[in-house]
């Protein structure tokens, strides 16, 4: 169905209060994101934060227990019409190890309505990946390139990649990310790729989704995230608030306090010295906040016993 949200201007991805429960445990909770079209999003968070669950919800392999998921305005489903527009590369890039890239392309041509085998062959030939050898005999980097070429061959509007570079060495990682970035030049392709190490993927991305503490902590353009967070260093003021800023993480030493804050306006108090933060430092601050919130009650119990 084409509603207003599925028109050319709606977001590629929109979720509202999405949760997924397996038995009594929530794998994902209160996930609210909106990703404009044409973005390459880094999906990051600690292990168990629900990254894989969110990707599976987006491709319709799982259904939300709570909330709503929309991809180009539609509810994801394992139907031919929906899957024609969405590519999904699971962890470890599952492929038939005995088949060659060429044979994989032939199989794909039978299974998909749109299939650009020509471009996939050219892409792999440029990278000097052998097309006629069983993929099981290729290097990890070459295998990942075959998997990417296969995922792109059906010309998806949205490509979801679960930890695509986790198993690659630094050179193969860079080549894989360059291939991915090259595929997004036209601006018609939206991508979400997960990683537990943000510095591996951050420069290929322009959007960040941070899951921690069971929910979305950040869903915004990376430049906006960098501009909106600062490290404040000043005299020790344990527990003190800062006007115009939300404290994400605080470290108090006896000579100084160091606060990671999200700014709503510039901090004018001259007692604070302000420094820029890298994306990884910002993400770590959100993850630490989660941990301290969990640690605190445990410490209380130990003290009482």
């Amino acid at each position: 169905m084409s509603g207003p949200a599925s028109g050319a201007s709606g977001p590629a991805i929109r979720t509202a209060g999405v949760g997924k429960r397996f038995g009594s445990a929530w794998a994902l909770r209160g996930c609210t994101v909106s990703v404009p079209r044409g973005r390459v999003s880094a999906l990051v968070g600690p292990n168990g934060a629900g990254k894989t669950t969110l990707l599976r919800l987006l491709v319709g392999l799982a259904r939300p227990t709570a909330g709503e998921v929309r991809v180009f305005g539609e509810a994801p489903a394992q139907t031919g019409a929906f899957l024609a527009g969405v590519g999904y590369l699971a962890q470890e890039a599952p492929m038939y190890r005995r088949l060659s890239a060429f044979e994989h392309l032939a199989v794909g041509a039978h299974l998909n309505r749109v299939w650009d085998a020509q471009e996939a062959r050219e892409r792999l030939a440029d990278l000097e990946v052998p097309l006629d050898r069983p993929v099981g005999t290729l290097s990890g980097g070459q295998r990942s390139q075959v998997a990417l070429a296969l995922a792109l061959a059906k010309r998806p509007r949205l490509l979801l990649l679960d930890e695509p570079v986790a198993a690659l060495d630094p050179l193969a990682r860079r080549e894989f990310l360059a291939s991915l970035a090259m595929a997004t030049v036209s601006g018609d392709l939206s991508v979400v790729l997960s990683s537990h190490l943000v510095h591996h993927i951050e420069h290929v991305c322009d959007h960040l989704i941070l899951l921690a503490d069971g929910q979305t902590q950040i869903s915004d353009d990376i430049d906006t995230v960098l501009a909106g967070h600062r490290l404040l260093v000043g005299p020790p003021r344990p527990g003190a608030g800062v006007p115009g800023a939300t404290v994400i993480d605080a470290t108090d030493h006896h000579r100084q306090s160091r606060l990671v804050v999200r700014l709503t306006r510039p901090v004018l108090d001259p007692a604070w010295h302000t420094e820029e933060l890298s994306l990884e430092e910002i993400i770590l601050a959100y993850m630490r906040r989660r941990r301290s919130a969990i640690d605190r009650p445990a410490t209380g119990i130990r003290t009482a016993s």
Partner: protein
Amino acid sequence: MGFRLNPASGLPAYLQIVRQVEHALRTGLLRMGDQLPTVKQVISEIAINPNTVAKAYRELEMAGWVRGRQGVGTFVVRCPCGPPPATYARLAHTLEAWVASARREGLDDAAMEALLRGAIDDQNAGVA
């Protein structure tokens, strides 16, 4: 020219590229009429988001340094009118010696930056 990105920097990637082009212009590495690498060249070299490169080039265009010609490329159209590159090299050398001595005296990065900033401000105030 090639670009390098520092993930430990709090500077957005597009601004890192802008700074590197400006630096290359100031030191004479880039000259009038030179072409900046195409988006695809930059991607294959440093695996960067194409929007980031486009944003950097737009910023440089708005500042008047370069002009993009549709389907042809992005070219340097203005150079900083200043002394030749050799002068920059000589002054950088003097400054490096100063930084080394300041560090020996125990000054940190922020203190050195504050001193330089203060000296520039004092000069400007004197001129005005």
